[in-house]
């Protein structure tokens, strides 16, 4: 199969799975599956970064393993932990019988008592899973360094057990909202894609794909309204999820066209405006003007 058709094919399959992707994104994802390098996705909140991982796992028909990063995330929560309670129980049971201490120790520190956390899980699957490391910028620098070690060697050493080698190399997707500068070394190791807010056509296709029952008129109005809103100076710009929420809310309120019921539009704006300042800034007059423009 030639290169171009492969990209087209991937783009079509992504669309079938409910994800509308530009050609350049499809091309990057195609490369990502071929090279099996980690993929770093950056972009504003709500542009569908996490969704990419989800749809990839759907396409490859493999499990999605997700590691949500947060400040203070440590090795125990990300890689492995011993199941202390279980071990203790085993010790008590072993005390009853006569077992020689050497083998007892072996038994207690065996894989049976190992709790696998996402990273270890990801490399011990029979088939390559998609490993989503979400919001890596929230984790500490130390964790980032450790993660890099795992991602380059694909093996994890547990002192009591020895080294666990990867049985399959996962497809690694990292997302970041750039709340913190990531280290150069990590950036260098990854493929990179910057996900932008979708343009009008793309967002319209997304809305139509996700909410098939929405009328063509409402869909167009919703999308152009949200696009207009994003152009303004907002504290928290509405993402795609917000437009979908809003469209669903409007459908639920029985609105077929924005200009027909300004009240309902105002009431449902809670779906789009997520901070006090933003909701204060958008007045009814403003909304009416934007609605008039988007009709």
């Amino acid at each position: 199969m030639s290169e171009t058709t492969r990209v087209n094919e991937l783009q079509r399959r992504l669309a079938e799975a409910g994800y509308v992707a530009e050609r350049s994104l499809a091309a990057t994802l195609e490369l990502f599956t071929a090279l099996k390098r980690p993929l770093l996705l950056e972009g504003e909140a709500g542009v569908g970064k996490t969704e990419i991982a989800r749809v990839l796992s759907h396409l490859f028909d493999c499990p999605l393993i997700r590691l949500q990063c947060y400040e203070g995330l440590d090795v125990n929560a990300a890689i492995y932990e011993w199941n202390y309670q279980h071990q203790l129980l085993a010790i008590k049971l072993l005390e009853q019988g006569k077992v020689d201490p050497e083998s007892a120790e072996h038994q207690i520190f065996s894989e049976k008592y190992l709790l696998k956390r996402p990273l270890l899980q990801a490399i011990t699957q029979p088939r390559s899973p998609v490993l989503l490391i979400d919001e890596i910028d929230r984790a500490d620098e130390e964790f980032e360094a450790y993660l890099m070690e795992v991602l380059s060697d694909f093996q994890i050493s547990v002192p009591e057990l020895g080294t666990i080698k990867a049985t399959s190399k996962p497809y690694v997707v990292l997302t970041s909202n750039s709340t913190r500068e990531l280290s150069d070394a990590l950036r260098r190791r990854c493929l990179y894609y910057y996900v932008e807010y979708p343009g009008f056509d793309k967002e319209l296709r997304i809305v139509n794909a996700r909410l098939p029952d929405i009328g063509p008129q409402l869909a167009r109005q919703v999308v152009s309204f949200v696009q207009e809103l994003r152009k303004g100076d907002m504290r928290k710009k509405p993402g795609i999820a917000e437009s979908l929420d809003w469209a669903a809310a409007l459908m639920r309120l029985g609105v077929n066209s924005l200009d027909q019921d300004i009240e309902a539009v105002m009431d449902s704006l809670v779906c789009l405006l997520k901070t006090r300042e933003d909701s204060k800034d958008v007045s009814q007059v403003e909304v009416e003007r934007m609605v008039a423009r988007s009709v």
Partner: protein
Amino acid sequence: MSRLALQSKAEPTPAEMLQIRLVEFVRLARENGFRVGVAEEVDAHRVALHCGMINAWRLRWGLRSLLCSSQDDWERFDELFDAYWHSGKGAARTQSLAGALVKRKAQDGTGHKGSDGQASEADQARQAEGDDAGEGGVREGTSWRENLMRADFQFIADSGQMRAVELLVERLARRMRRRMVRRQKVQQLGRKIHLRRTLRNSLRYGGMPLQLAYQRRARRQPRLILIIDVSRSMSMYSYIFLRFARGIVNAFRDADAFAYHTRLVHITDALRQPDLLKVRHNLALISQGWSGGTRIGESLEYFNRDYGRLLNSRSVVMVVSDGLDTGEPERLSCQLELIKRRARKLVWLNPLLGRAGYEPKTASMQAALPLLDLFAPAHNLQSLMALESTLISL
């Protein structure tokens, strides 16, 4: 793309020629500040093989994903790609890379983007240093940086270096936080066992203290409050400090920044914007818009009245100013005293202090001096870095 095909035919061994061109391109990217290593050079070939060299768009997208590693890279990649692959024949091939780049920039006259300015600046510096421009990029880059560390901000005239300094200043702020957090973690190695809770936990296991509970030390990061003078006399410095403030505000969870000349403006929210272009725009408005005379005392009074609640025993207040004040010194010392009483430390950063022969003789500086915990220069990156130890010692 037809040109690519043509070029490859014109050469004796097209495949090799393309390979060389590709390596050259990756090196060019590295010289332009893309974070690219040898592994990426190898992978670039895999990408090229995978994407095929015929479809220019596929190659562009493939290389873009491979070579870029930040939004900044992302935005200037296309220009670099076009400049290299679609430039006039020969020019790029016969000359050394860096030279070719500078020349092309000069021809196009596209120095408008600051990032490119920086790149060509680096190249020019390298050319000025003479021998083989293509080779020792990394080493020379370092010394170039070292010089920047010591250069007084006011003497950095060209936009490229300025941008580099701004970037460094912002990184510096982030690194400060990283070190401080690390130090706290190291301290935590000597943790104390929480006896009562450990006993309580042991009940579950029949009295065996299996789950040790530790006393948790509260993470104490200072609350940083930056008050930056953006009056005309500070205009050479204020933008740098605003960038520094941006780094601080983004890195520390608990930090606030203010700018003032005759009145005080809370700028933390403007700085927190992730979109750098927008921040730059906002900051430009702030730092250019009102470079009038300075009234430090009045501005601090306003600060105490409206933002005094920000001060607590963890706060470090940093006033950045040259101390050239048009207000009364008594008012200033009175307000500074109010701040000092409520905050942990009061630091005054004066960019003039780095100049040879400067003595803080102005009335307002004299009034302020006895109240300060630290009076430090802030005219170059090194002096800013020295601040770190003060912050840690809290």
